[in-house]
């Protein structure tokens, strides 16, 4: 009963306030505006449907269950030409996510290196970094993409004259072929779990002994990686080595030239932008903070790690979110160099194979929207968490 009263109370007061302020006309105008927008949207949708059906164009998403009929050059999921089209959509989404995440992680790591050069006291290092940033920030990314693809990775020697290491690793214009461990699903799972252990331990350590070396996230990540590789190497029953077969190669794992070009182009390009964001944030921290650290006898590394970075991160998150969302959308240009991302698979191949232009573009739009909004939301949550810590 009490809860009921509480729930209705604000509503009543809101009504009273509106009437008291004489905002009734304003409210009516707003209601009319919303109604007009909704009516307009309904009109567009219904007339589109009517137009489509009057022209004998099949609408709806049933086409997604048809077999794809085409193959995809790079896929993290099992996919053949017999797979249904919704599977092709999933491949497109995972490929786009893979590009976005790889680009963000590697781009940010590279940006840390660039910004440490940029802020170094050595004029040579600082000048080099400034030149790097200037070059990448003031040229279009498509140019970098085409350069890395046509001038570097696709221009490598052919499969007969390519680079061969120990008869196991091959680098040529068909891509990078490396041996791949034969490991059961359980093996991969155990390796992943073991890799996560040091990270969890360091998070626990951070609460107990914040100054301990075991609390450092960078060290725990490194340890996790080492553990992962160790488990895979020990548990692998055998390694599948790539061999020449026909005009191509068979076996092993393949990194296609398109992927290498995209990763290199996106990382170098975005690192310049992220480095500038980081520089702005770091330079925005009051010099007194550094001096206070020096007064406490901390060395330079500890000052950056413990005093400057934690504060800079808080400042840099909103612009960094923008940059990350831009990167997600930027991945759509990789269709230019034949990397099968969401845009190429769904927005080009599926669209033209099925002719379902409106549906395909609606799917592509919604997926980009969902990915970008989710990324922005996660960054927002992270920022809120940091802010709460700061206020305490």
């Amino acid at each position, binding site marked *: 009963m009490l809860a009921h009263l509480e729930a209705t109370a604000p509503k009543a007061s809101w009504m009273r306030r509106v009437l008291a302020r004489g905002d009734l006309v304003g409210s009516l105008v707003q209601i009319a505006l919303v109604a007009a927008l909704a009516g307009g949207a309904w009109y567009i949708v219904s007339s589109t449907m009517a137009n489509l059906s009057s022209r004998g164009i099949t609408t709806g998403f049933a086409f997604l269950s048809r077999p794809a009929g085409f193959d995809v050059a790079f896929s993290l999921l099992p996919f053949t*030409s017999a797979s249904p089209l919704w599977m092709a959509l999933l491949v497109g989404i995972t490929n786009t996510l893979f590009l976005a995440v790889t680009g963000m992680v590697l781009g940010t790591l590279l940006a840390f290196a660039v910004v440490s050069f940029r802020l170094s006291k050595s004029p040579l290092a600082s000048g080099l970094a400034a030149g790097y940033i200037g070059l990448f920030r003031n040229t279009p990314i498509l140019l970098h993409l085409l350069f890395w693809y046509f001038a570097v990775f696709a221009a490598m020697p052919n499969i007969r004259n390519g680079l061969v290491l120990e008869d196991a690793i091959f680098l040529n214009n068909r891509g990078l072929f490396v041996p791949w461990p034969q490991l059961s699903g359980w093996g991969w799972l155990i390796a992943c779990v073991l890799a996560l252990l040091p990270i969890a331990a360091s998070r626990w350590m951070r609460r107990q002994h914040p100054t301990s070396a075991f609390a450092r996230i960078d060290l725990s990540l490194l340890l996790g990686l080492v553990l992962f590789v160790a488990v895979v190497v020990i548990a692998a029953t055998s390694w599948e080595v790539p061999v020449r*077969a026909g005009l191509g190669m068979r076996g092993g794992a393949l990194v296609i030239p398109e992927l290498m070009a995209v990763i290199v182009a996106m990382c170098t390009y975005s690192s310049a932008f992220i480095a500038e964001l980081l520089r702005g944030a770091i330079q925005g921290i009051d010099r007194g903070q550094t001096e206070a650290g020096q007064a406490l006898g901390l060395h330079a590394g500890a000052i950056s790690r413990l005093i400057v970075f934690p504060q800079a991160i808080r400042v840099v998150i909103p612009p960094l979110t923008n940059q990350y969302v831009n990167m997600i959308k930027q991945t759509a240009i990789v269709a230019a160099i*034949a990397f099968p991302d969401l845009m190429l698979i769904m927005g080009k191949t599926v669209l033209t194979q099925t002719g379902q232009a409106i549906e395909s573009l609606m799917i592509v739009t919604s997926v980009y929207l969902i990915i970008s909004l989710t990324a922005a939301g996660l960054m927002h949550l992270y920022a809120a968490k940091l802010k709460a810590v700061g206020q305490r």
Partner: protein
Amino acid sequence: MRYGLFAAVVGVLVSWNCGAQAQATLAAVKARGELLCGVGENFAGFFSPDATGKYTGFDIDFCHAVAAATLGDAQKVKFLSATPSARFPQLQSGQVDILSREVTDTFSRDTSLGLDFPIITFYDGHALMVAKSLGAKTAKDLNGANVCTQTGLSTEVIIADYFKSNNLTYKPVVFDSRDQALAAFEKGRCDVFSSDRSTLFAYRSALSNPDGFTVLDETISKSLNGPTVRHGDNNWADIVRWTGYVLIAAEEFGVTSTNVDAMKADANAPAEVRRMLGAEGGFGQMLGLSDDWGYRIIKSVGNYGEVYDRNIGSGSKVSIPREKTLNALWKNGGALIAPSFQ
């Protein structure tokens, strides 16, 4: 290109009145005084700009023929660029009256996209272009090949089917744009470039070293290409279909752009020829056109053989063989045949 596609899709979304005009393409063309013809960007022999920037080609001439039949003047055509991904929305939304750009007729396109394929004007099929240095003599030598293609055509599905049914492995390298696909192929990124045979001949002539490449003899698919119109306007589809038949029949009857005046005036010419050229029978009116529509087609572009030779035959740069192919007249063992003018 992207903007074109989005504009076309928006066109579908907001074109309220086009549904009502489904049966009225001819009236719209006559009222406008101009035929809107969707063609590709550049495809040597079929549609490409000449030295003066004017478009010429096999598919261009077809639109000139339709304009001659409907408007009495072959020059009253506006050519609009229709890219592979934007072409169907452009037609569906009424931005063009006809697509004349070697669109391949398929079941799903004909039945579910609101399109009609009134007539096949060019028989083609996918083939494989390889570097001569590869040493491949037949498609069976291509196991493990990387295959460059351009998206937007049926190529991706045809290649997948072909390699799978021959138990050959391959890797697709699918580009958004033709120029980049060709550049990557020429750089050696792929062993094979695949498209329609006619397309490959045109592309090969544009490579920096055409003699280093060869088109393998196998044809791995059939492509039946022709003009495309909106589904539901039967009168317009009839006009387009019979424009094509006039071109084919005129070649069969020996009517050319040079002798058409004499043939029309000749009271002793075969009755079918006289009906086709509008000297008797009143056939034009049955299509909603003036009776001399057939005469005007031949007078302005010539018959099928003349159009073929001028643009893609032995007299042209592309030089696609016609003898003993499906594109020969039925009398010569080909597939081109027109119903009787009765």
